[in-house]
């Protein structure tokens, strides 16, 4: 096939020494000399951080610690496994039950045991050829050059190549990513006219979902599951769709069924836990978060709030168990300030629930100290927890200030606003909370209108300085960040490009993307920014 396997560099990851040496001897038989080996996930991550390998052969089962999927997720997440690295997952069973990561975290192929050196070779060659062919498109996508990527897709598709399906798949995904649902839908429909291809059904379902045609989406996802009970992605989408349709009960059932089939996915357990909590199904929620805490201790998806949510639920029934999970949080995360902050906040609340007043006060004091220490990079969830703890432990003023700032930074985030209202409710301050939220929102909206007016009447300088002042007050507010980016670009168009302003546009857009991924207007503004850069 013309693939030069011999000159490539390899990383072999397996917890069994015999397996490692077998794999090595297979590679040596192809003339490979550049082989390194790791016996566990932790070592593998260290090696991947030092060097980019052409090929990674990784066993799914790595004994204690991370499994192969968790390793892949972490490696991809930290940018240690670029597209150019071919990642083959070796599995013990000929089932795909372990397929559960998000699409961007899938290995390039699976190889099920038993296999011999010829089979490994044939798989390696195919994966490498396949990836090489798509590399150009992937590179453009990395640079956010969507139009160029689509054009390159079309060029290749026009030649009716061997891997036509793969190109169509990729093109449709790019179209969805850039919000062109009708075009993506047309590709899926054309494939589905001839064949009930699961990938095209899934794509069509997503198109329906994003176009808010939820009933159609639901039917498609259900059909996929009827054909393949282990299609885990379809379960996740079906649950999402059920939530969109307001059928939380069905969403719960779907996720519960999915976690039975694939219990090791921490993300799904978290989804289930959060949904069950909202629906006041505390039994299901507790079980899901316990699973999340236990299966996910080596996963990048693990978060301290899984432990604290669990602890707070348990505090009503078993204070001892609640506190035990909080100690587990501390020991799993070691000297991580954020994690200790979470633990301290939750401890202060659990201990308060248990009536252990002085210990609660001590934990609250610890939380305060840690909060000051990491006040720069605190997530919304953490801030809300801290505010809650303040209100519970008699520091009302501080709690109010924190909640106000949360509202200002997220004045259009209905979910967050509802949760802030819940926090007020839980300490008996419904009315006061309602008023505070309304005032804060009004303030942001007024500011926004004023800035927009200024910009419309051509007073760009004034609009910029108004928005800049506002954004200092609410640095994560997507509307303000987008408005300021927009006004900056208007200024650049009127007065010619300058690097300082371009840089600031980029910064504000990045904040939106980080804080509010999936914001519809972001894509439009980003396109405008790209055009401006290219002009």
């Amino acid at each position, binding site marked *: 096939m013309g693939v030069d396997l011999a000159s490539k560099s390899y990383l072999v990851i397996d917890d*069994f020494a*015999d*397996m490692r*040496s*077998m*794999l090595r*001897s*297979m590679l*040596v*038989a192809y003339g490979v000399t550049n082989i390194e080996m790791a016996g566990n996930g932790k070592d593998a991550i260290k090696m991947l951080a030092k060097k980019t390998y052409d090929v990674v052969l990784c066993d799914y*089962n790595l004994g204690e610690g991370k499994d192969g999927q968790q390793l892949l997720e972490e490696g991809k997440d930290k940018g240690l496994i670029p597209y150019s690295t071919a990642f083959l997952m*070796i599995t*013990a*069973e*000929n*089932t*795909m039950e372990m397929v559960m990561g998000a699409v961007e975290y899938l290995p390039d192929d699976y190889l*099920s*045991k*038993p*296999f*011999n*050196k*010829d*089979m*490994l070779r*044939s*798989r390696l060659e*195919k994966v490498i050829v396949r990836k090489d062919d798509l590399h150009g498109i992937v590179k453009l996508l990395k640079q956010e050059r969507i139009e160029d990527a689509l054009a390159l897709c079309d060029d290749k598709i026009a030649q009716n190549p*061997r891997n036509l*399906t793969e190109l169509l798949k990729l093109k449709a995904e790019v179209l969805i990513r850039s919000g062109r649902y009708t075009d993506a839908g047309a590709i899926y429909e054309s494939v589905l006219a001839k*064949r*009930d*291809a*699961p*990938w095209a059904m899934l794509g069509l379902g997503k198109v329906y979902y994003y176009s808010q045609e939820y009933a159609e989406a639901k039917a498609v996802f259900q059909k996929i599951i*009827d*054909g*393949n*009970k*282990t*299609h885990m992605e379809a379960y996740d989408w079906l649950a999402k769709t059920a939530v969109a349709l307001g059928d939380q009960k069905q969403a719960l059932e779907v996720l519960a069924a999915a976690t039975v*089939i694939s*219990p090791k996915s921490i993300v799904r357990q978290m989804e289930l836990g959060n949904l069950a909590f909202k629906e006041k199904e505390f039994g299901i929620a507790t079980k899901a978060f316990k699973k999340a805490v236990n299966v996910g201790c080596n996963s990048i998806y693990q978060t301290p709030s899984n432990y604290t949510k669990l602890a707070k639920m348990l505090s009503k029934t078993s204070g001892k168990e609640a506190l035990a999970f909080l100690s587990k949080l501390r020991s799993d995360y070691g000297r991580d300030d954020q994690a200790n902050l979470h633990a301290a906040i939750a401890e202060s609340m659990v201990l308060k629930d248990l009536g252990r007043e002085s210990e609660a006060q001590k934990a609250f004091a610890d939380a305060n100290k840690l909060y000051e220490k990491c006040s720069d990079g605190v997530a919304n969830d953490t801030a809300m927890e801290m505010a809650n703890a303040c209100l519970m432990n008699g520091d009302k003023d501080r709690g109010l200030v924190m909640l106000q700032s949360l509202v200002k930074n997220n004045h259009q985030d209905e979910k967050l606003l509802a949760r802030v209202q819940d926090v007020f409710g839980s300490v008996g301050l419904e009315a006061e909370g309602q008023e505070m939220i309304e005032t804060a929102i009004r303030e942001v909206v007024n500011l926004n209108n004023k800035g927009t007016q200024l910009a419309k009447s051509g007073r760009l300088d004034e609009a910029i300085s108004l928005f800049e002042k506002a954004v200092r007050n609410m640095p994560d507010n997507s509307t303000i960040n987008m408005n300021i980016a927009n006004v900056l670009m208007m200024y650049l168009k009127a007065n010619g490009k300058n690097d300082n302003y371009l840089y600031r546009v980029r910064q504000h857009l990045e904040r939106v993307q980080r804080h509010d991924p999936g914001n519809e207007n972001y894509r439009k503004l980003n396109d405008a920014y790209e055009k401006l850069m290219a002009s």
Partner: protein
Amino acid sequence: MQLSAETMVCNYGASVSMSDNANMDFSTILASSIHDMKNSLGVVLSSLDELVHGLGDALPPAQLAKLQWEAKRVNDNLVQLLALYKMENQGVALNVDEYFVYDFLEEVLVSEKAVLKTRNIELELQCERDLAWYFDRELIAGVLKNAIGNALRYARTKVLITAGEEDHYLVLSVNDDGKGFNYRLLADGLQNAHGVDFSSGNTGLGLYFTSRVAKLHKNKDRRGSIQLSNGQALGGACFSIKLP
């Protein structure tokens, strides 16, 4: 430890829990024991592979060939049993995607290579390189291994595998130049696919598994099927599976 390059990578001591449930029923116990047996067999097979490979070009002694052949047969049977268990107990889990048929067949044959060497039978593959089709890779591999195993058992000198598109179906055929299927099997084999015939050693598992897998494959309103016949390409038996 010196390992030969022909080594099969198998499943070392990985224990797989079939269920979280403490009240296991009998079929679950059966399935998890099958799993365990399969693991042991994997070790046996890879050791036999090493032995055969160690002989270089020399033909292995008859006992070794027999050992390898029978061990592989047991292994393939266990794989089928496990797949059937899953279909019965966990619902349909057909993992359909598009594959290049030639590449797929090549991989299936590669895993049969060690056995071919000991049988001294010529194996030919006829398939267009760019033909792509949708199917469950693992299950269809199981079907073909079963069919090829049978063909090798009865072939005198040659086995021919063909693949091609006919009338919007993918047709995969395994032909041999043996004496052909017996008439009873041809007459009612497919209807009584799980009828047991201990005298011939045919438990019907292979056919049962195969027809289940074929029927599971659907596209629009068409389903897969299998066909047994005699006197085709090589004059002997011909097994075909049609996938929509």
